[in-house]
């Protein structure tokens, strides 16, 4: 379970990314975070991996307070909360297999285990035949699937995706969303921050709308716009 308790994030220059945000996401939920640029969607996701910490309030993953987590536990947190970025954040000098494998390597996983697990996850995201390709040789959609595979390789309890369809064509975007839905069906909590109206509207999942750092709407089966 994820819980934000009256979370505020203010920067040194006085700007405010989040203002008194409280929300709760249950295990196995599929949640869209929507809202204009600068609304605070990315800050919410960053707080889940302690990339940002609140200036006020608290963020919980199950019973653990993320802001109070000691730095030595951050790597473990980041394996529990897999994250996918709009710009994929793949290592350009490593092929598909290596880009996924690195997530296990950093955890000192044995080589034979890495080999089996990566093969399994690449098959899941439909990239088995591209395992020796480098990121530059892949389409946007394929790159995003590599990023998802990397985030999934640790079997995280939460998968957070920040604009996962932002840099890919509409067909690939739909495929990515189908993949995320499939992952959610298997029990992983999925949170997607997005601008993609069509996707949000067609999925009919929970929608949390942020504006100027505040939650302005939280609907169980919502659409992108309140009156759309």
């Amino acid at each position, binding site marked *: 379970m994820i819980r934000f308790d009256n979370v505020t994030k203010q920067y040194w220059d006085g700007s405010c990314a989040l203002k008194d945000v409280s929300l709760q996401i249950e295990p196995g939920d599929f949640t869209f975070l929507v809202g204009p640029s600068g609304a605070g969607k990315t800050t919410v996701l960053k707080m889940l991996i302690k990339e940002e910490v609140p200036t006020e309030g608290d963020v919980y993953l199950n019973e653990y307070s993320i802001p109070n987590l000691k730095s030595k536990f951050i790597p473990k947190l*980041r394996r529990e909360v897999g994250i996918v970025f709009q710009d994929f954040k793949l290592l350009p000098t490593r092929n598909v297999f290596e880009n996924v494998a690195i997530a296990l390597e950093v955890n000192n996983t044995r080589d034979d285990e890495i080999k089996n697990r990566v093969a399994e996850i690449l098959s899941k995201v439909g990239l088995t035949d591209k395992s020796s390709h480098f990121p530059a040789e892949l389409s946007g959609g394929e790159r995003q699937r590599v990023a998802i595979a990397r985030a999934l390789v640790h079997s995280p309890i939460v998968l957070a995706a920040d604009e996962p369809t932002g840099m890919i064509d509409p067909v690939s975007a739909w495929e990515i969303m189908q993949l995320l839905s499939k992952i959610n069906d298997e029990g992983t909590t999925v949170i997607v921050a997005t601008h993609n109206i069509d996707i949000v509207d067609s999925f009919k999942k929970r929608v949390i709308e942020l504006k100027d750092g505040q939650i302005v709407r939280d609907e169980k089966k919502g659409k992108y716009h309140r009156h759309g």
Partner: protein
Amino acid sequence: MGKIFKRAFISIRRHGGLTLASVVMMSTTILAISLFVITAWVSNVVLQNLEAKAEITAFFSPDSKEDAVLSAKKALESNSRVLGIKYVSKDDALKSYQDQHQTEPTLLENITANIFPPSLEIRAKDINDLPSIYEELKTQPQIEDVVFYKDVVETFQSWVKAIRIGGLSLIGFLGFVSMLMIFLTLSISIHASASEIDILKLIGATKGYVRSPFIVQGIVYGTVSALIAALILTIVLPLSIPKIAPIFQGIDFPSLSYVTIGIAVAGEVFLGMVLGALGSLLAVRRYLRY
């Protein structure tokens, strides 16, 4: 472990120019430190030799009876500060004179033992006691003259002290500069790999996983630099020793075994590794915060 080394070597290769600058700087440092250690060792041996040879010679009047000199010797031997006393009789003095002037027969004409004063050569347990023994001997009436080359020993002592202080300061300074060089090189390496490091952190890499290749990189720089310094010394020292050796004629140097040389090289490598590791640790602590 193999993967850490692989990542370290990739980073070393990427920053070839900086690697070269760091290694040159560190080699120079380790070379300077080695030269200082050699200089300090040589001066120590010379000082020990001088100290061992430092003695006071008390000359009695030429008409002194042997018994009187020997009883003075016996009295001095009971002095706790005295290490040993050698009695040089008139005949010994003549023989020594003759030996020294073998090639100059004119100087040996009409010379008899009678003109030489008998003397006692006194060595102290502690070289610092020589001046007080000297002062005591001067007050004794049967002793005509007391000779003590204290200036030579004292001057050399102060030289050795200066070498030690100057050398240690130099080691400190060069060691600091070396570490700074490694620090800067690794800072640049870390900055150049910033996006990769960010990704690694975001996907749950441990601190150790992210830091270890950079620490290995620093240790590799230090080790390679030390080996280069050792190689230069191995080539230069045997060539320069024959030219320097005549300066130290009469000084007994302990011979250096291969084991000693091996220990010295190992010490250099260890020093290089420590400097490299410290420089890299500083850089990762400064730039790889979690």
